Structures are given as structure tokens and as C-alpha cells.
């Protein structure tokens, strides 16, 4: 059974329809990338998966249960969300931010237990943040802060992790670091990941499957090799693109604008 299943999903802001009749099934232990040009609906789909917006049509099932029927707390126990960016109103410490990930399990008023602290410790160590628990988040680099947000989502012990453009604010070093981290997590914790991502080379390298969106509709789904074809790239991005293996046997992509 897939961990997440979306059926005939239509999503809208106010009255503007952004995503039309979207279908997808996310298998356990997979990293699925949502790709497509700006405004194609990647982030909107993620927001619907996280329960932030209600679909105007269609259903989303999480582990066989309808998402809209889950309580906020139950949902947060199953789904972790890593926003593209976040600005904290006050500089909490790294440890305090990550501890918030325990709220879905412990509630909002009871003190955290020993087990909770253990999970927080594990999240710190998985994201390579050990020793930084007392640092204030406004003193961190953007790469470190991105890891803190991932660690907070991990502390929720979710089965599904949603990442919104996790690499878009980072330089290439941190981009690779964060995506390596996601890959490690999927292997170690057997969670599934849906990631909205701009960078096609990174998407090809790290995702098991890609979903290509164009103007709110899915135009192709499959392995990176199946999806990132010259025809699809021309259709979605209006570029002439070439997917190839670089000398390290990693996916790389070269592109030039299609009109020229």
C-alpha cells in the first residue's frame, strides 16, 4: 500500500484553480520529486499534502486514512513538513526548536519525557547538529538552519516527510549536504519523502521518481530517465535539454532556451 495516495486532486487559492485533477501514489521508502516551472503547482501540492489547504475536489489518503479526517495532532504524527524558509519571531535555541517536533506526541501542555529528549537527541545526531543544541537559531548559517528544520520534522517521527525547495536558499555545498542527509534518512529511518525542487540535476540525482508538472497538471511521471526527456523539457520549460551521466556517473543536465 502506498504511504500517500492522491486521487483527482484539484486545488485552488480563493477562486483561482492552481492544480487540476492530480493523481499520485507515493510508495514507502521512496524519494519523489515534484518538478516543473514556477507556478506549476509544486508547492501547492505539498501544502495540500501537509493539510495546510483543503482540496476543492478529490481526496488525499495517508497510510490508508483520509487526510481530512485526521485530527491536527494525528496528522502531525504522520507527516513532517520542512518549509522553504522560516523566520522565527524570537531566537529560540536549536534544541528548543527541535523539541517542538515532540508536541504531536506529547501535546502542548505536558512536559517532555525522557523518551522525548531521546528522540530529540537522535534528531540532532541524524542531522549532524550534536553540540549545537544551545546555539540560538539566528546565529546559524542557512544550511545549518535548514538542518534544524529537518531535525524538527524528524522529531515528529513521521512516516512521510515533505520538503519545500530545501536547497533553493543554499550554496552548492549545502545543497549536496542537505540532499545527502535526506537520502541517509530515507535509508536509516525508512521514511518516504516528497520534495518540491527546482534544480533538475539535483532532482535527477536524488529522487527515485519524478513528477513533472506544467500549469497545474501532471504531464509525466516516472524515473528521472523517463521524465527528463528532451520532449518533456521542451514542453514544460521551453528549453532544449540533455540529460547525461557526468564523469562521476551522476546525472547532469545541460540546457539552452528553446526559442533561440
Amino acid at each position, binding site marked *: 500500500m502506498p504511504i500517500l495516495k492522491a486521487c483527482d486532486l484539484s486545488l485552488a487559492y480563493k477562486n483561482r484553480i492552481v492544480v487540476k485533477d492530480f493523481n499520485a501514489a507515493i510508495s514507502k521508502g521512496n524519494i519523489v520529486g515534484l518538478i516543473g516551472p514556477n507556478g506549476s503547482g509544486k508547492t501547492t501540492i505539498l501544502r495540500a499534502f501537509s493539510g495546510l489547504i483543503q482540496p476543492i475536489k478529490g481526496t488525499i489518503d495517508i497510510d490508508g486514512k483520509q487526510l481530512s479526517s485526521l485530527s491536527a495532532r494525528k*496528522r502531525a504524527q504522520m507527516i513532517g*513538513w520542512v518549509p522553504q524558509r522560516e523566520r522565527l519571531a524570537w531566537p529560540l535555541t536549536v534544541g528548543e*526548536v527541535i523539541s517542538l517536533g515532540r508536541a504531536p506526541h506529547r501535546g502542548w501542555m505536558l512536559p517532555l519525557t525522557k523518551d522525548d529528549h531521546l528522540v530529540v537527541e537522535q534528531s540532532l545526531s541524524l542531522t549532524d547538529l550534536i553540540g549545537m543544541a544551545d546555539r540560538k537559531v539566528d546565529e546559524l548559517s542557512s544550511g545549518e538552519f535548514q538542518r534544524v528544520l529537518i531535525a524538527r520534522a524528524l522529531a515528529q517521527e513521521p512516516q512521510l516527510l515533505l520538503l519545500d525547495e530545501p536547497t533553493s536558499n543554499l550554496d552548492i555545498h549545502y545543497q549536496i549536504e542537505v540532499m545527502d542527509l535526506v537520502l541517509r534518512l530515507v535509508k536509516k529511518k525508512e521514511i518516504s519523502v516528497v520534495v518540491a525542487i527546482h534544480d533538475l540535476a539535483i532532482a535527477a540525482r536524488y529522487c527515485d521518481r519524478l513528477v513533472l508538472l506544467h500549469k497545474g497538471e501532471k504531464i509525466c511521471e516516472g524515473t528521472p530517465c523517463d521524465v527528463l526527456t528532451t520532449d518533456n523539457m521542451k514542453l514544460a520549460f521551453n528549453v532544449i535539454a540533455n540529460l547525461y551521466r557526468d564523469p562521476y556517473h551522476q546525472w547532469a543536465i545541460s540546457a539552452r532556451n528553446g526559442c533561440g
Partner: protein
Amino acid sequence: MNIKNSARFELAIGILIFSLLAVLMLSFGVGAVRLSSMDVISALVDDEAKNWQRSIIWDFRLPRVLLVSLCGAALASAGVGFQGLFRNPLADPYVVGASGGAALGATLAAIFRFSDYPISLGLGALVGSLLAVLFVFMISEISSFGSIAGILLAGSAMSTMLSAVVTLLLLLNDEVLHGIYAWLLGSFSSANWSQLKQTCILAPPGMICTWLMARSMDALASGEESAHALGLNLRKARLIIVLGSSMATAAAVSVSGIIGFIGLIAPHLARALIGANHKSVIPVSMLLGSLLLLVADDLARTLMAPLEMPVGIFTALLGGPLFLYLLQKGGK
């Protein structure tokens, strides 16, 4: 909270409790009639002490000093609540219109002679404060100025309007005006046991509500989307925070009038001392609020003794510059 932070928190709490006790003792002694600390202690514990001294302590200073401490703590906890709710370091009960709403509510209750029932002033203040805050919240949500400017603009417009209405009402009902004028400026000069009782009904539940929402406010600090993703029921959490902070505001305003800036300064000092975690910020702010308001009230009583100045003047002198400093820092 880890060991280093919790040690810091405990140290801060210890020092503040000690300072509070010291200032409390000092506050018993100062005023129109000066009493030495020996006089104070003997009046408190010794039945044989001079009658007039016992009367000063038991009938005037003890209820006043307790009332001031309680109001200081209540205003501080309301300040933390409103700042957490609006994610805005410049919010406080005065800025978001809660104090103004509470003052109007209490004035109406006084004019309609509900004041024979002691709790009615507090309830009137609570209703006024709730309505004002909800209104400011709605306006700031839909304003085009961005959230920080939106709240400041909506809140200050609201406060000005409300205080104009209060002034008008008092002018039209001049027999009430006499007793209520000092109250309006922010003062504890008429503090007594029945006011203390009234404050005890609303302030502690308000402060407890706010404290119970500590972790929720930590989550709200990350923004709506993240708080939602962490499983927080935003509507419910906000409602409880508004309720708790309004209760605390109403408790203070209904006995002492509008006293600005305590709700602004105390949380800021607390964050500077022990970090931003609300579970620590709330108790430390409350102690700081008591301490600051006690000192301000002592100054108000002594600087021009035997005349009394409204305590609001001193909190404004302390808090105004801080507010401007935070504003020029861009509300960071």
C-alpha cells in the same frame, strides 16, 4: 531545556524573588509617612505595635503593595501573551488596544452602577478588552501594511478612539468622573482589600492560561504554517491566548487604570536574561513586571510626597524610550 539553560533560569528566578522580597519590604516603609523597617516588621507581626502604624500597614500599604505586585505580574504576562499571539515584539496590552478596551468596559460598568457588585468592573473590563483585541487582530490580518505595522496602526487608532470615548462618557457623567479620574491616569492611590480581591479573581486564571500556552507560543513563533504542521490547532490556541491575556489585562486595568509599557519592558528584559523559550519567559517576566511596577509605584508615592503622582507617568518614562529603541531596530 538543558542543564545550562535551566541553571540560568533557576538563578534568574532566585535573584528576582529575592529582589522582589527586598523591594516589597522597602515599599511598606515609603510613602506620605515614612516607616523604618523595624516599624514595618513590628506592625506586621506584633499586636502590641502602635495603632496608627498598624493601620497604615494593614489598611493601606499591605493591600497596595500586594495589588501593585499582582498587577505588575498580570500586565507582564499579558504582554508576553500578546507578543506571542501577534509574533510582534512591540505588542503589549496598551499597544494592541486591550487596555483601552478594558478601560471603556470598566467605565461603562461604573456608569451603569454595576459597581455595587465588585466583580462587575473586572468583567466589564474583560469584555471590553476581548472585543478590542479581536477587532485589532482582524484589522491587522487584512491590512496591507504587513503584520507589524498593521498591528501598531490598528492598535493605536483603537486606543486613541477608546480613550476618547471614555473621556466623553466621564464628562457626560460628572458624578462618576470625580472618583474615576485618578484611576484613568493609572494609579494605585485608592488601593484597598476589596480591589485586591477583585484582581485575585481574574489575574491568576489569566496568568495560568498564558503559562499553559507556553509551548504553543513557541510554535507560533515559527509562523502559522509551521505551527500548523506541528499539529497546533491555531484557532483554539489563539483564542486561549487572547482570553488569558485579556483576563490579565482586565484584572489590572479595572483596579489601576491604564498603565503602559510594563507589558512591553518585562518580556524584553526576560528574553535578554534567559532566552526566548516561553516556559521560562513567562514566570521571569511576571517577576520582573511586579518588581518594575513596585519601584515605579514607590517613586510615584515618594518623589513629591505627600502628593502622589500617577504611576503611569513613571512606567511611560521607563518604557517609552525602550519602545522607540525597538522600533528603530526594525522590530527585530
